[in-house]
């Protein structure tokens, strides 16, 4: 049984699964016509005004499964017709207003925007600054703040509403964190899939004879497949046609080692693991760019390691993250990663290929250390770098873990103003870190425990062996 957090995820999954199945079995005459009919068979619509609209939206989802609009560089796109034009009324007085005598709302308003007309509160939109004080003041909870969930979810204010009341993403402002993808209640914002690229790579390997295909898995994976053990999921990935599964955590060990060395040189640094955080600094705090670590992210580090030991290898990253799909195409990653899959896509891929993960045997994963594995949670890098510093006798490191863009903002502003007390800034765009990534199958408090458990099960208690492996592979150059 597959458990999704939301029905939107399930719809996306159904589309992906059908498209993948077709890529292997050619089971539809016309994917764009047949798949929507299969998912929304009618005669009654399930959640939109009619089946025709449902099917039209499903066609758009199929387009995204095939990679979406190639002219749009962003990895997240708005599906115009799926956007339900949520109200943007701002402060709104509901019928619950009882026309009381106290008028706490009016007293609370700092801008004098509330008048009492016909005994009831009336908000002057010209004056209202949407501060929300009246919402909290009303004892009947009669005033609500009508905002679009996408706009609220976007911490960098990259989403606006156009003249047709549709959501629009400003690519110059967007950091591709994917929060809106998970938050939009209508599933109208979605990430583009690279699954077709991945299938081409796998098919082209001719069962790993032409070249070998490696999967690099993000440590957050342990919190995802609740119905199976991680060792079984690894077996499942092998069955999809991957030659080897390598933990991104191995790359994280190496990143830790490099970042510590880099910090010793620079004295002040921000981390580079989260591509949305890096993009956030580049777009909003350009003057702090010089502090961004030059060490590549664990994903890229692991891929580079693989390619040094096997130069013809192709590497696919599997993770919870939308922005990794952009990062892999960036020049600085030197094509180390050939493509990226999300956990959602992995689930669809396994099911499309009829692989029952829970019924598989175990394949062990034991290369990475405890520290590499807990990178998935906010504070993971900080814990790792502290201990690495202690082990090497490095002094003076004062790290801080910034959890989510709001915390990043506060601390980067301090840094910019020269008022920061810390000198090592770990930043993650998603609240809670990667295990709350937008393309996770599940988002829950228990996920942190899963990641910790996985970290504790690491045979390697230090990053030493990963670093040894790294240095050995460097010598090959």
């Amino acid at each position, binding site marked *: 049984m597959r458990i999704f957090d939301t029905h939107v995820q399930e719809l996306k999954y159904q589309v992906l699964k059908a498209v993948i199945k077709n890529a292997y079995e050619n089971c539809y005459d016309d994917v764009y016509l047949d798949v929507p009919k299969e998912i929304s068979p009618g005669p009654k619509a399930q959640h939109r005004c009619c089946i025709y609209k449902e099917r039209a939206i499903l066609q758009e989802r199929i387009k995204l499964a095939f990679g979406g609009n190639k002219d749009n560089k962003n990895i997240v796109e708005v599906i115009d017709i799926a956007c339900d034009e949520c109200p943007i009324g701002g402060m709104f007085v509901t019928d619950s207003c009882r026309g009381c005598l106290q008028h706490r709302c009016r007293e609370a308003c700092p801008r004098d925007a509330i008048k009492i007309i016909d005994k009831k509160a009336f908000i002057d939109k010209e004056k209202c600054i949407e501060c929300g004080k009246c919402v909290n003041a009303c004892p009947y909870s009669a005033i609500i703040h009508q905002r679009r969930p996408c706009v609220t979810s976007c911490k960098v204010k990259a989403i606006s509403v156009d003249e047709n009341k549709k959501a629009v993403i400003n690519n110059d402002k967007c950091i591709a964190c994917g929060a809106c993808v998970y938050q939009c209640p209508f599933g109208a914002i979605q990430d583009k899939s690279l699954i077709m690229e991945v299938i081409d790579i796998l098919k082209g390997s001719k069962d790993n004879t032409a070249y070998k295909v490696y999967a690099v898995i993000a440590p957050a994976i342990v919190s995802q497949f609740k119905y199976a053990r991680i060792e079984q999921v690894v077996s499942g990935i092998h069955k999809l046609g991957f*030659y080897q599964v390598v933990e991104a955590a191995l790359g994280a060990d190496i990143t830790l080692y490099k970042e510590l060395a880099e910090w010793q040189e620079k004295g002040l640094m921000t981390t580079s693991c989260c591509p949305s955080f890096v993009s956030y600094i580049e777009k909003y705090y350009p003057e702090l760019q010089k502090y961004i670590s030059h060490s590549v992210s664990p994903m890229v580090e692991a891929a580079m390691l693989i390619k040094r030991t096997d130069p013809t290898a192709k590497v696919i990253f599997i993770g919870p993250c939308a922005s990794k799909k952009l990062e892999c195409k960036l020049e600085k990653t030197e094509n180390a990663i050939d493509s990226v899959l999300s956990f959602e896509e992995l689930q669809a891929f396994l099911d499309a290929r009829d692989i029952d993960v829970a019924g598989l045997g175990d394949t062990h994963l034991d290369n990475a250390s405890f520290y590499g594995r807990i990178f998935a949670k906010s504070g993971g890098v900080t814990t790792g770098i502290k201990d690495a510093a202690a082990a090497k006798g490095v002094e003076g490191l004062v790290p801080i873990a910034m959890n989510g863009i709001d915390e990043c903002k506060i601390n980067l502003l301090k840094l910019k103003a020269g008022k920061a007390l810390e000198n090592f800034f770990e930043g993650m765009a998603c609240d809670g870190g990667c295990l709350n990534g937008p393309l996770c199958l599940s988002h829950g408090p228990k996920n942190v425990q899963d990641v910790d458990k996985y970290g504790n099960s690491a045979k390697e208690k230090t990053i030493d062996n990963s670093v040894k492996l790294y240095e050995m592979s460097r010598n090959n150059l």
Partner: protein
Amino acid sequence: MIVKICVGSSCHLKGSYDIIEAMKKIIAEHGAENKVELRASFCLGNCKNGVTLTADKPDERMLHNVSPDNVREVFEREILPYLE
């Protein structure tokens, strides 16, 4: 000669890092640092045969069941004679 030592999960558990260290030492003892290039490799697909090494001379071959106890013997028998 290029010698690759498997560090895939299975070999890793069976101690490939210890073997890498031992091998480095033995190579140094023979002063053969410039003749042997020691590399790591991800899984060589021989998980059931103990820690696996590959050597490319005189022809491409695999050496299985290498352990800290027999690594010196393996080196002297399988690698040393073929060094140029």
